[in-house]
């Protein structure tokens, strides 16, 4: 019944909370402490080994004397890229939490690092998908240039007609000899204008139900027939792109997973998107949207009213509580107990960004009616410091991008609360016969 019980319960009632229980539970508590001590020792030994390996590598490739690209390539080849990558593909097959020791040694030596922001989709979504679902040959071909940043990746999933209902997508891939010929339109593609490769989901069989007819590819964005156009959003800037595909030839060698298994592979990609969101770093009080609002309040005593004060106190409290909830989620993940609370975080994050920036515009009064610039920009990458109006407008997207809040509520209701699904008519009908 209670969520407390949904976490792994201990084997027996526990100590310290009432005398009768103490005798019964002292044993298991001691056992747990022993196990924990052993695990700690193992981790420390692993870390020692790793640090030694890094120091040896650094001795061979002194950062000061090695060009950045060469250094990164060598690092990858030495298994010192991301240590949780497989051996032979940039890693050592170690757990993720071994990485900080590696980074620490490199930082002390002043070594160059990869630019995560520049290839966030490649590192966050493409690499895990490739590691999980691609062949050894494909891993060898793609992972190194992906990790070093020589090749940026993007994601070609959404289409104008397939947003929330991604599985209904219409981009067609038709087999032709050793190639597939792909035609269609993708949308909301971050980084497409920088990317060399894209994770492409396309329909290879329109005669089966929608989830069954999809296949997953790695698309070369420099191939003939690929056109990338900026997609301007209501802030004026163009963070995203539309990608038009006209008779693009994709070698079958670039297919990831079996023909018809595209939905399964795509889910591996999307799951990594969620993990990436969930495992983000600790955040300080007032670090997010509430900080802008609080700073404005402190800076402008002359604008204060009781209405705005009450609204601010409420929003500040909600924001601080949501920060604590995110921290709690982080602790759950760190403890190996990932909970479903991440979906709540995204819902509330969107809502708070919208409410707080709306408050900011109201608080700014006449200043809130002014914007900096409507001119179209590329690579603005959402500079939230642009002011309250920008934040107000940009935050409208927070409840749409990466899964709308409506879809998120469906997911919470069905996967967390286990409420029954709505009656559905689209699961067993051939894709080509669906109403649209």
């Amino acid at each position: 019944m209670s969520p407390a019980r949904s976490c792994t319960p201990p084997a027996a009632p526990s100590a310290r909370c009432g005398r009768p229980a103490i005798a019964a539970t002292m044993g298991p508590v001691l056992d747990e402490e022993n196990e924990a001590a052993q695990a700690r020792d193992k981790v420390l030994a692993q870390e020692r080994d790793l640090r030694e390996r890094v120091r040896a590598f650094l001795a061979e490739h002194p950062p000061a004397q090695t060009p950045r690209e060469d250094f990164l390539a060598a690092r990858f080849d030495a298994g010192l890229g991301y240590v949780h990558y497989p051996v032979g593909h940039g890693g050592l097959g170690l757990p993720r939490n071994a990485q900080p020791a590696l980074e620490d040694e490199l930082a002390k030596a002043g070594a160059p690092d990869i630019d995560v922001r520049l290839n966030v989709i490649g590192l966050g979504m493409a690499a895990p998908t490739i590691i999980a679902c691609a062949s050894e040959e494909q891993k060898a071909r793609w992972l190194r240039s992906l990790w070093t940043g020589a090749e940026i990746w993007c994601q070609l999933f959404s289409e104008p007609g397939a947003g929330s209902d991604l599985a209904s997508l219409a981009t067609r891939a038709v087999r032709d000899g050793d190639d597939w010929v792909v035609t269609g339109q993708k949308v909301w593609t971050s980084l497409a204008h920088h990317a060399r490769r894209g994770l492409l989901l396309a329909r290879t069989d329109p005669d089966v139900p929608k989830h069954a007819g999809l296949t997953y590819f790695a698309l070369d964005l420099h191939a003939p027939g690929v056109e990338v156009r900026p997609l301007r959003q209501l802030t004026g800037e163009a963070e995203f792109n539309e990608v038009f595909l006209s008779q693009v030839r994709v070698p079958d060698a670039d297919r990831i997973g079996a023909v018809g298994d595209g939905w399964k592979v795509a889910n591996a990609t999307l799951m990594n998107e969620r993990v990436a969101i969930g495992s983000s770093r600790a955040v300080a009080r007032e670090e997010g949207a509430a900080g802008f609002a609080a700073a404005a309040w402190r800076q402008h005593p002359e604008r204060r009213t009781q209405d705005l004060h009450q609204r601010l106190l409420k929003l500040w409290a909600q924001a601080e509580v949501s920060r604590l909830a995110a921290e709690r989620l982080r602790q759950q993940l760190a403890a190996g107990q990932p909970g479903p609370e991440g979906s709540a975080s995204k819902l509330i994050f969107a809502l708070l960004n919208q409410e707080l920036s709306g408050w900011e515009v109201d608080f700014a009064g006449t200043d809130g009616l002014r914007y900096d610039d409507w001119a179209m920009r590329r690579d603005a990458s959402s500079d939230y410091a642009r002011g309250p109006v920008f934040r107000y407008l940009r935050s409208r997207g927070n409840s749409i991008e990466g899964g709308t809040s409506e879809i998120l509520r469906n997911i919470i209701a069905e996967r967390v609360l286990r409420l029954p699904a709505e009656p559905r008519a689209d699961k067993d009908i051939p894709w080509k016969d669906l109403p649209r």
Partner: protein
Amino acid sequence: MSNAVSASKVPPAPDLLYSDTELALAGALDDLLSQRCGPAAVLARTEQPEAYDVALWKALATEIGLAGLLIPEELGGAGASGRELASAAERLGAHLAPVPYLGSAAVATATALAAAKSATRPGGGHSAGQQAAGIAADLLRRLADGTVTAAVAVTASAMPADKFPAAVQLSGPQPGDAAAGIVRLRGRIDSVPDALPADVLLVPAEGVPNGLYLVEATGPGVHRVPVTSLDMTRQLCDVSLDGGPARQIAVGASAAAALEAGLVTGAVVLAAEQLGLAQRCLDMTVAYGKERHQFARQVGSFQAVKHRLADLWATITQARAASRYAAACLASGDPDIAVAVALAKSACSDAAVTAAQECVQLHGGIGFTWEHPAHLYLKRAKASSVTFDTPGAHRAALAGLVNLPAPA
């Protein structure tokens, strides 16, 4: 069934329905605006240097007679009332017409009307007052026939109850000014709505006593700098006055009353405009809900979407009553007008912002793009909710008006 018992205690409410005249006016406006002010045209204009559609405004002003709605027939106007003024505003809001109706036909016209009236009323009738009344009357005539567009030079967030603005002062006179009946003004007013396309500015200036002055917008010493505005379809500008000539149209209490009349009328008209905008956002979203399919269903068949749109519709029915009440109070000079403005401006602002936000959200990705008009509604709605001050400020005004005093 117990009508007879208690109805006598309840003061009769004014007519809150749309009259046939208003419906006809609305119909005529919809026809014209559908032709000349479609979403694509409105969007395209936001990227042109001239943010206002002056040609459309001339057509509305002269062909439909929008500019002179409030102006008495003897001054060449339509002699209509706040009711018609408000229903027309609904249609302009629904189409996001980039015309200075709010600033000129509502705020400036109501200000000039009050100035003309106060200057000529018994007791106010000294010679300077008669001269001022003449200037105001002349302005009203030119407003009515559409040859002139005016704006009151107050910052966008001004509220009727605010104290008289102190942004502009009288500066030293030049030789011959007194004979010519002019004074000089100096000062700066930021973020003025509808001043960009205005030919004439009505400028409140601090002094002893305070006064309200007419300034030719293109005259010497007047600078208008366009502002990159949140509301792309009602571009603000910063106005600075650098010793340019001005003629008084009201002074002292009359000036304050005229300015208040303008802002009250502006708030009522803006509330109606927001109502029209809210309804249009709902209509667009409902239409999209019938058209867009996901999961092999119209998205408008999903119950969560239906319930949100039903709630939005209910919110709009409420806002409509508030807007109609304010328009009726304005039309009849009802002393409850201050309460009515507070209710209408807060209810319609909230309805419009909610409707525009839901419109963006329930359109999904496309609603977040530049190419879809949803953002233009969002920007207008949010900016309008701050214009003539926020819903919170209007509700705060109720504390004094209906005896709900703030904590000591």
